[in-house]
């Protein structure tokens, strides 16, 4: 692979992410990694459901009186939007429009950071209510499930930023196109997991 080869939108392939052997391998490998991640989250969800509302006798907290939907709904919207903006970024990547891609990625990162900020605010709020990590089996299961998702968001953000900074001068080439593609795939996965968290933890929690 020649790093110095300059592409134009005309010579740029339709699917730059799988145009090279390395890209193909990364593409398949990453989907497999996401399968493993799915099992990880499935285990966490199962544990959360088993331990939901379980605590020391006389525990005052329950999912139905703890969670508040408006904030979580806002977080959901922000993350869903960021998924959309990353789709725009990939659209420009496929058209070899590096600047537009960087711009949309920047917006994605900002939205992701906003989501993470709100999540930290939410956790902080619960801790001040007395619902800390060591409070009960319920709290441990809740923070571990949602916190693992949060850690994924943080990792995704760092990955976005590292790629954007590293390639800001280099521009798009066949070496980094698969990487951009994978991080956006990862971002969609995080988004899907959040939809499940929103449904299983918050909606089903508040409803009862």
């Amino acid at each position: 692979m020649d790093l110095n080869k300059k592409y134009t939108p005309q010579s740029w392939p339709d699917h730059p992410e799988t145009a090279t052997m390395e890209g193909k391998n990364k593409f398949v490998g990453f989907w497999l990694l996401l399968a493993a991640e799915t099992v990880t989250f499935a285990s966490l969800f199962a544990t959360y459901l088993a331990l939901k509302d379980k605590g020391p006798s006389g525990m005052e907290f329950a999912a139905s009186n703890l969670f508040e939907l408006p904030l979580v709904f806002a977080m959901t919207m922000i993350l869903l939007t960021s998924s959309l903006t990353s789709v725009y970024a990939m659209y420009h990547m496929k058209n070899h429009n590096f600047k537009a891609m960087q711009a949309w990625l920047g917006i994605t990162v900002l939205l992701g950071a906003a989501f993470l900020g709100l999540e930290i605010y939410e956790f902080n709020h619960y801790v001040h209510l007395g619902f800390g990590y060591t409070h009960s089996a319920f709290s441990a299961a809740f923070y571990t499930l949602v916190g693992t998702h949060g850690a994924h968001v943080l990792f995704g953000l760092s990955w976005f930023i590292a790629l954007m900074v590293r390639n800001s001068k280099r521009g798009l080439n066949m070496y980094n196109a698969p990487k951009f593609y994978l991080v956006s795939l990862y971002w969609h996965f995080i988004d899907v997991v959040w939809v499940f968290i929103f449904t299983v933890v918050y909606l089903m929690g508040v409803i009862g």
Partner: protein
Amino acid sequence: MSSIAQKKGFGAAMWDYLTTVDHKKIAHLYLASGGIFFLIGGIEAMLIRIQLMKAGNDFLSAGTYNEVLTMHGTTMIFLAAMPILLAFMNAIMPLQIGARDVAFPFLNSLGFWLFFFGGVFLNLSWFLGGAPDAGWTNYASLAIASEGHGIDFYALGLTISGFGTLISGINFLVTIINMRAPGMTYMRMPLFTWTTFVASALILLAFPPLTVGVFFMVFDRMFGANFFDVTMGGNTIIWEHLFWIFGHPEVYILILPAFGIFSEIFAIFSRKRLFGYTALVFATILIGFYGFMVWAHHMFTVGLGPTANAVFALATMIIAVPTGVKIFNWLLTIWGGSISFTTPMMYAIGFIPSFVAGGVTGVMQAIAPLDYQLHDSYFIVAHFHYVIVGGVVLAILAATHLYWPKMFGTMLSEKLGKVTFWLFFIGFHLTFFIQHFLGLMGMPRRVYTFGADQGWDLFNAISSVGALFMALGVIILLVNIVMTSIKNERVSNDPWGDGRTLEWAIASPPPFYNFAQTPLVRGLDTFWIEKMEGNKEGMVYAEPLEEIHMPNGSFVPVVMSFGLFVASFGALYNMDGDKGWTIPVIIIGLVITFGSMLFRSLKDDLGFHISKEELLRDVKGGKSDGLK
């Protein structure tokens, strides 16, 4: 290039292995470290049998015994059997499909070093205040109650090595999906490649639940979480589920590659195509699939209720069908063949009755009400040793003899190999057959001693004698390896003479770039086809000789793994709450790991090319396959 490698000094060779991303060298690393852990686990097994040699023995104290039995199981499963199988997968699978290397050479190296540092970390517990003592299953109530750091060594050590295994699993899957030589369709892949493929898929889906469970354990012990603290609403059965959702597929992760190895051996040494290849492939896939549906048969006595027990009992019995299909296909493979009783074939022949015995006791245990009697008794100990020693370890020993020439270019002594086989085989049955009866006579497993009034003395004594035979067999194998290495008689591409698949078409050991030209695969047992047609060139090739692109070696995997190793020490001692140095150590460790990860991803690493001239030189010198 390969000739240069031989002239290097010891230091350079060390550096070569520390930085290698070549699947064949990584295979050597897996084999060597897995072998060492196998010896450690074997010594632990001998300690167990010495302690149980007679009633009321006081060779080991109660606490030490529990540590030994825990480490024996953990070491053998995670640090010996799996890595040694990974060694053969690494060494052989890419050759079998005609690939240049695995899909992610860097990750391959990272996977090894994570396993290695995780294993070393786990075993350091012996010297740092005591090993884990809650059994390899590490049931939560006992593990949470366990004092000292043994359980923390278990949890953190398995986390690190588990990541390594997961990475290897993904790597093999991608390799098989993307990197098969032209003509190598899925239904032309050798059985060992197929079993590697299915076992890797199992690794991919089975390790995450274990990781999650182990993290719960770490969080409970380290951060005061309450996943398993019953008084705080926790539930210890969650651990049992997570562990066995991992644990049962793990059994198939071990046994499927063993099936693959034996499938190769039966075909080679009967000079016959595998009977019912298609059936064998589908049986493999089915076994892998069912592997995820039966975990609760390890939990029949937990009290899940009759409905769950009945469903899991039936699901478990169904697995016997594809397994039986395999056994009969192997029998029909040797039927009508020309059987050559080489050492690998002896193991394969010995495997059939041993594994059938282990399999039928498995079906007996699937009968849930009967399992209420058998569960956690010595019957179970006998059963899983019949499956794992009679299946996996025999396969490992067979593959060691079969693939030694391919990996190291020289043959292990057949004479000593057969001595090892007989000692090991007789010792194995002597040790474990009688344990079925001990279990039926009421002996629970994991007991550090038993009274003379229980009527178990004689059978335990016999069992201990058997263990001695196995130990002798392994010692002779070591002698064999040393003598063979000293003699170092080089062998040709196809040292057994009856090789059928692609790995036998390449030099022993293969050049670091594997096939100089990618071969064209014209059918199942492709090398056999060429041989039968009298192809003097070895293979038909899919492309002209061209320069080859290779990845650069890298020291980063060692550094990354070492960082986690360091951070784990910080995390482990941080639980004491009275040491100031632990947080900085965690941070330093993580900075090492993530720093080297960042370094790796920010740097352009495009590899290098081997020129056509160099390849031609190798081909002419007979160091490589290809046009002569």
